[in-house]
């Protein structure tokens, strides 16, 4: 089985390096094909590992030592257990689909080979992240996906907005990574190891306060990757990257790394329910907060991005309340339908020559039937309608909240479920139905390549059926994750009913409101609209209170402090010495009588000193 583990892990790396060899050369299909083929190999290996793990085994290997000094010992160790194998499956399935899809999507792009190199490198990093058996290895993957995310967001590097967004994403993630790093330090100095098994076995021996700090700092790391408030703005801006990237990185895999971390570190978070409750509350807040921004946005990809943010909030609610398997379940289901949604959006973008405003679309159903059906499927799954995947996973989260008697959280999530359904179908209605407004803007939409649709279909299938395997899933992952005791059997059906009701309500409202196209522009004058379309003014605020002052302070530090104070002081000392020399050079004017005069003065001074010291010395001596 070790062999399959290594194949699953390193096949993407090989693909990446292969594509990198041709990085600067013009487009050649074989890079895309080989990278996709290798990813498929990785997928198959993961599947074999999955069946092996389902038999109740785990695979744990140690490749080699990475860092060893003092008492610190960090190996490159990898573990395939019930949790990581699920993640591996999710990552490889989505990335294989995205790779093949990208062959079509990036067809006309100059950077075709480069793109595949980055994309496969990302998959490799993600595999390291989920397969590592220690926190340091996790951090390698963590930063690796950050790097690939930076490369891919800024893929079209000639665009100012893209490079800006790439840097923003990297730096915001770095802020969170510091928290993560501190969490790792805390773990090391209190336990003496970074291996998961050692840490989780020892963690309950620690002081409650220390565990709390560990939990908080690790979660700060998770907040960055998973774009939780207040580190969320990068995710929406990250939509500057090519759409397959958004599907793979910023919807299905990388952004869920934070959730994965909390799930993986469940023995830590189980010890500190207060932090868990905070995580859950933040998650619920973000779920609602992001959903509201999605309501009014006029950028297709941003709407889906906010939706991702909102769903990540859901996952954190589950994870924070101790229902780790539920979080993982929603993570998996979400990966499938959200990736599908993004890829559909990619088709629409292509059709509309990169136009993203759904208001300028309308009636696309007629020309893009396949894409439309796939996107509707994904939206229904996202809205959580039975029997689609989203229903099973999202409903469970609401149940968890209710069962833990956190009714406010439940209420928030319940309302958000309605909002989710609403904004999803607002997008569908605006883009695919109603009047064909794109004609006014002179677009000539066309359906994407057939193979792109075909390759999306596995995701569609999974978006539909993934929820049906809930019981198998639970059996698999609860051998590692703690189970969750539901106390809601008496109201279960009622809860499902209420939740489904609001979801259907959201869909119906959206269909009714947007059946004739966009709302009147009068609404855009409204205060609420302005707040929401400006993302609660948070990006502006960050720009005003962080970015600009940092720049100003930096210039001040350089021009005023460094040059005017620090360096000037040094120069002043040097100048003082120099000036002293300059002023006293008259002594050496070469005139013998002046020099003799100075000599006499010196003599007198020395004599006086000698006398003074003798007298002084005698005085002390006496």
């Amino acid at each position: 089985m070790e062999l399959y583990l290594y194949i699953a892990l390193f096949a993407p790396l090989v693909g990446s390096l292969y594509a990198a060899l041709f990085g600067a050369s013009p487009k050649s299909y074989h890079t895309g094909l080989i990278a996709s083929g290798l990813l498929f190999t990785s997928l198959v290996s993961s599947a074999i590992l999955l069946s092996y793990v389902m038999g109740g085994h785990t695979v744990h290997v140690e490749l080699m030592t990475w860092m060893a000094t003092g008492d610190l010992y960090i190996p490159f160790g990898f573990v395939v257990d019930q949790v990581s194998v699920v993640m591996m499956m999710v990552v490889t399935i989505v990335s294989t689909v995205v790779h093949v899809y990208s062959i079509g999507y990036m067809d006309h792009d100059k950077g075709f080979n480069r793109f595949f190199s980055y994309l496969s490198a990302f998959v490799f990093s993600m595999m390291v992240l989920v397969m590592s058996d220690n926190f340091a290895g996790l951090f390698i993957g963590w930063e690796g996906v950050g790097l690939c995310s930076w490369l891919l967001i800024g893929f079209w590097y000639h665009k100012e907005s893209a490079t800006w967004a790439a840097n923003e994403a990297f730096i915001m993630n770095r802020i969170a990574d510091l928290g993560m790093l501190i969490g790792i330090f805390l773990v090391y100095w209190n336990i003496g190891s970074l291996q998961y098994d050692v840490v989780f076995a020892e963690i309950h021996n620690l002081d409650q306060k220390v565990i709390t700090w560990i939990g908080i700092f690790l979660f700060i790391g998770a907040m960055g990757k998973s774009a939780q408030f207040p580190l969320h703005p990068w995710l929406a801006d990250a939509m500057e990257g090519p759409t397959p990237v958004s599907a793979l990185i910023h919807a299905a895999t990388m952004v869920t790394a934070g959730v994965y971390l909390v799930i993986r570190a469940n023995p830590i978070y189980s010890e500190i329910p207060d932090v868990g409750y905070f995580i859950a509350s933040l998650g619920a807040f973000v779920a609602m907060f992001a959903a509201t921004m999605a309501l009014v946005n006029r950028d297709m990809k941003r709407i889906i991005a906010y939706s991702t943010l909102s769903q990540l909030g859901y996952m954190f609610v589950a994870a924070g309340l101790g229902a780790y398997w539920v979080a993982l379940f929603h993570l998996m289901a979400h990966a499938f339908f959200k990736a599908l949604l993004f890829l559909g959006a990619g088709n629409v973008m292509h059709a509309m020559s990169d136009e993203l405003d759904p208001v300028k679309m309308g009636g696309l159903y007629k020309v893009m039937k396949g894409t439309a059906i796939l996107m509707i499927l994904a939206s229904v799954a996202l809205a959580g309608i039975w029997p689609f995947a989203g229903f099973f996973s999202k409903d469970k989260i609401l149940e968890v909240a209710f069962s833990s008697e956190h009714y406010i959280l439940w209420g928030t999530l319940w309302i958000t479920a309605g909002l989710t359904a609403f904004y999803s179908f607002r997008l569908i209605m605006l883009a695919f139905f109603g009047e064909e407004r794109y004609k006014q803007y002179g677009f000539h939409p066309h359906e994407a390549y057939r193979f792109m649709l075909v390759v999306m279909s596995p995701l569609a299938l999974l978006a539909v059926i993934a929820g049906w395997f809930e019981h198998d899933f639970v059996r698999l992952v609860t051998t590692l994750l703690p189970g969750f005791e539901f106390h809601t059997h008496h109201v279960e059906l009622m809860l499902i009913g209420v939740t489904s009701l609001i979801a259907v309500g959201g869909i119906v409202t959206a269909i009714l409101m947007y059946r004739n196209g966009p709302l009147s522009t009068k609404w855009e004058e409204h205060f609420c609209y302005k707040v929401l379309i400006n993302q609660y003014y948070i990006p502006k605020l960050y720009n005003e209170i962080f970015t600009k002052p940092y720049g100003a302070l930096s210039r001040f530090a350089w021009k005023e402090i460094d040059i005017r104070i620090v360096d000037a002081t040094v120069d002043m000392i040097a100048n003082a010495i120099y000036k002293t020399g300059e002023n006293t050079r008259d002594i050496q004017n070469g005139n013998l009588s002046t020099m003799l005069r100075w000599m006499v003065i010196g003599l007198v001074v020395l004599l006086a000193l000698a006398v003074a010291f003798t007298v002084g010395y005698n005085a002390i001596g006496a």
Partner: protein
Amino acid sequence: MEITLTHYLVLSTILFAIGLVGIMRRKNLLMLFFATEILLNATNIGFAAISHYLGDLSGQMFAFFIIAIAASEVAIGLGLLIVWYKRTGKIDLDLMTSMRG
């Protein structure tokens, strides 16, 4: 009135002061030599007087040394002075500033 050590020392001091002032004030190189000689002889008087007072001959020995050194110094110094005079025609101190810093 008996002439005591004090008188000799006062004489030596006066001579030394004269020499010092001469060194500082005179611009003529020749005069400078005179002033130097006065300085040296002022110390010589001091040496001889104290030597006599203490009954120790080493002071007078030093005085002889100084006389010898002063003589050789004057010999070399005057030699240089003559060369200088031949070259420039002047022996004014203010004009000798080639060692200016």
